[in-house]
């Protein structure tokens, strides 16, 4: 039982970070019908930037988020303008897979040249500090990473729910033709939305490197995980994505505890196949158009 509770706590903490990583994918898919398979590499990019700021300038990885987010936001806008916008709407959904995969491999290659394929890890002084709560040990960095994810997700949620830009995004997701008729510039929403979607992933990446060792190829594992989460969450539903991410974190932790850490890597595979057989529309039964 102790083991079980410990695993669930770890899983919840990891799931919160997964939720931040995956919500950007959902956002981009909702707005543009683009499945951005470069999302994993954006996380790794965030991890490397944060790693570099820490090892060269002693910047705390949680502070480096303030630098990573705007930089990757701009990169995301550029990727949208250069690689995604030229695709014709009718073929965008399919071709964007290829295009963003090419972007992912390109960035992976550059990271390999700069940092080699050695595994890295950002290790601040408190990296191994733990809290004991009721006999359970929790690493402080994991709690901080979880807290940061919750804060960023909450900000994203408020922006979507309460601001003019948020209404434009939701409108574009729910009925693009109608949004355009009311004067929403779909291209602007797409560029900013894509920038936001990768910037949030990179923010997660900045702290991911503190918790987990990574190298340029780590994005393969991450993108499989994230794709499973958004399919599970019902493609295009943000609440669905969050729940699926937490579910994923917890099942991984349980498998790692009771069977083996390697089997945990297969979690996404097992969950994905299970879900596709039982509920092909995902846990939250998303309809044709999202409900962001």
């Amino acid at each position, binding site marked *: 039982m102790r083991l079980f509770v410990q695993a669930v706590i770890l899983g919840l903490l990891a799931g919160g970070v997964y939720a931040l990583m995956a919500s950007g994918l959902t956002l981009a898919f909702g707005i543009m019908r683009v499945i951005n398979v470069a999302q994993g590499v954006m996380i790794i990019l965030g991890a490397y930037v944060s790693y570099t700021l820490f090892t060269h300038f002693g910047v705390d990885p949680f502070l480096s988020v303030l630098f990573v987010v705007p930089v990757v936001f701009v990169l995301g806008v550029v990727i949208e303008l250069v690689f995604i916008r030229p695709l014709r709407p009718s073929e965008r959904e399919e071709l964007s897979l290829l295009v963003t995969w090419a972007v992912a491999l390109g960035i992976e290659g550059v990271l390999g040249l700069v940092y080699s394929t050695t595994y890295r890890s950002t290790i601040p002084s408190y990296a191994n500090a733990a809290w004991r709560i009721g006999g359970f040990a929790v690493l402080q960095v994991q709690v901080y990473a979880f807290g940061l994810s919750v804060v960023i997700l909450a900000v994203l949620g408020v922006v979507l729910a309460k601001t003019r830009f948020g209404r434009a995004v939701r409108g574009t997701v729910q009925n693009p033709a109608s949004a*355009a008729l009311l004067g929403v510039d779909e291209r602007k929403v797409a560029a900013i939305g894509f920038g936001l979607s990768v910037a949030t992933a990179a923010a997660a990446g900045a702290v991911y490197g503190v918790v987990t060792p990574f190298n340029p190829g780590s994005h393969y594992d991450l993108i499989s995980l994230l794709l499973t989460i958004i399919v599970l969450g019902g493609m295009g539903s943000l609440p669905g994505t969050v729940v699926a991410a937490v579910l994923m974190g917890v099942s991984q932790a349980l498998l790692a505890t009771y069977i083996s850490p390697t089997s945990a890597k297969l979690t996404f595979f097992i969950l994905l196949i299970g879900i596709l057989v039982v509920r092909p529309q995902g846990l939250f039964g998303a309809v044709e158009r999202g409900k962001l």
Partner: protein
Amino acid sequence: MDVVLSIRGLFAGYDRGDILRGVDLDVERGGVTCVIGPNGAGKSTVLKVVSGLLRPRAGDVALDGERISGRSARQILDHGVVHVPQERSLFPSMSVWDNVLMGGYVLSRAALRRRIDEIVSRFPIVRERRRERAGSLSGGEQKLVEIARAMILEPRVVLMDEPSMGLDPKARRVVFATIRQLNDAGATVLLVEQNARSGLEIAGRGAVMETGAVRLEGVARDLLDNPEVARLYLGSAARSLGDRG
């Protein structure tokens, strides 16, 4: 006749071929102009060209003498032409209130606040159902919210594409009465309707479209009394009774 919107020699279509083949139509300022005609005649296509969703291959659309054809949908919106399309156009998972706010997307914050007060007083449904998801409203209620949303911008011309489509007779009457009221309050409406009789009855002028062109144009009353229009579009007694609910 004081013409606010004038369409001349319009040719337009989609991927292949022209759907519109020389459309001429005038919209009277402050009036309701009702376009009727069979399915596929090109009625919606005319509205799409006017609102800038579709670029014409030839011809002109002028608003108070200024050419607006060929401009972007956003520019045409800024000129005060608002399009309520044939399909349902609310954002189904947004609240009624957020939907109406979206109608004023192009307005400044101050202008939006001012306009929304007026809309709320004119369309009580916006206040009564403000927190509900737009998609949970009935078809008739959704149409009223769509019309309310369109009026936020105080449009010079409202394009309404078959607002009564798919509604039960009671909801239809409410929609037609609402259009009447808007018009009494000064709005100019270009209305496309399958319920030809109901449409022409609230209109000052009417036009009949067939295969991409306007075949007949004139005072709505005269079209209602025209035996050929009656035979082709006003249907049998039973159907017109159905139309009127």
